[in-house]
């Protein structure tokens, strides 16, 4: 079973040289720490920055330079800054190659719910609906089951949707799965020490298992 950093490390292998990538808040942010040397990617922050650099050194924080998680950050050689409309323009025009974000639920047809729990506090969708509606390639980073032990990979989402038919791949503490075009989660890889039976038990949606499922290489 993987911890949060393990999930981030596995997702980092999906990031290819030359990609423009948007990382959501939470586990997706950690992915930046595991992108291998030699893989050149540009991180997009939807508040209006391409080429997000690491956190600033203490004492060098700039209140005017933050990421979409409102954290102080830095720019890199080659960075650019723009307004919010242009930022979502490049997302909508599919210039951003890969979007990695968290989710509360994903359905077997690729629907995602990650912004609202009715009856509890609603914080808003931020840029998530724009990102999932436009991105060509969406990877979800999440826990396989919720705190109550219930599967988050479902036949249908029960929470209000963020987007429909959009999730392509899911990486959890247990497994790597792809969402099939005609519906269903196909199991690609097991986390170290996790059995297919454990993944099956934690997946409420349709799970396809073909042949031997290899263990993740981290």
């Amino acid at each position, binding site marked *: 079973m993987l911890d949060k950093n393990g999930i981030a490390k596995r997702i980092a292998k999906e990031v290819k040289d030359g990609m423009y990538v948007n990382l959501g808040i939470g586990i997706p942010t950690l992915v930046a720490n595991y992108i291998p040397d030699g893989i050149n990617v540009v991180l997009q922050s*939807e508040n209006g920055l391409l080429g997000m650099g690491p956190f600033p050194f203490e004492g060098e924080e700039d209140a*005017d330079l933050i990421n979409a998680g409102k954290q102080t950050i830095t720019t890199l050689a080659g960075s650019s800054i723009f*307004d919010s409309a242009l930022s979502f323009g490049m997302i909508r025009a599919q210039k951003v190659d890969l979007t990695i974000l968290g989710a509360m639920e994903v359905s077997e047809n690729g629907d995602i719910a990650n912004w609202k729990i009715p009856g509890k506090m*609603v914080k808003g*969708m931020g840029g998530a609906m724009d990102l999932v509606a436009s991105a060509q390639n969406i990877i979800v980073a999440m826990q396989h089951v919720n705190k109550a032990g219930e599967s988050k990979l479902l036949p249908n989402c029960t929470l209000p949707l963020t987007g429909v038919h959009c999730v392509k791949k899911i990486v959890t503490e247990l497994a790597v799965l792809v969402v099939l075009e005609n519906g269903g989660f196909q199991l690609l890889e097991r986390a170290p020490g996790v059995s297919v039976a454990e993944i099956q038990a934690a997946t409420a949606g349709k799970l396809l298992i073909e042949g031997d499922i290899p263990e993740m290489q981290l």
Partner: protein
Amino acid sequence: MINKVVKDADTAIKDIQNGQTIMLGGFGLCGIPENCIQALLRKKVSDLTCISNNAGVDDFGIGLLLQQRQVKKMISSYVGENVEFERQLLSGELEVELIPQGTLATRCMAAGYGMPVIYTPAGVGTEVAIGKETRVFKGKEYLMEYAFDADFAIVKAWKGDTAGNLIYKSTARNFNPVMAMAGKITIAEVEILVPAGELDPDQIHTPGIYVHRIFQGNNYEKRIEQRTVRTK
């Protein structure tokens, strides 16, 4: 050159009336018009509809207007980080319309470009789409969203000149340029105000035609929401 300069924030916002719709630039607490928010607090204008990506925090930004119950409705994409906001929402004192961030930005842009509507895929198949006209282009479904109609836009820039031209700094740019374009009356507060002619025309982000009033603000606190650093 037309001179857009007004004395201060109080003068700039003096004709904002109860019940009007105002846009406020900024992302989180980054690039918010701090001086005008203080002036709105002093004026105690109420029943405002505020269009802003976020609603500040409890003791800063738009959160201060919420504390004084000056806001009737918030139109935002993300409103976490605010206990008073949550209380007013749950008690029904505050009306809230949550819309996708890109839709928010692009509805501002549309107003500034003179376009009545935009089509966006954001929110298709979700509760955001309820009651909205949709169209299919090249096999993909889009929602029709209207350009915003705001009485005032209040923005913060880094530098400006007496003709109303604006230059923003770093990610404090965010929603400010699109909101500057979208107000029937646009008020800009800047950290540095210079005479017309001192800014390079090639470097202007917002042309002065969109800006009706400009003044040099003071005492910027520029509060940081998430101070994150690494050690040397």
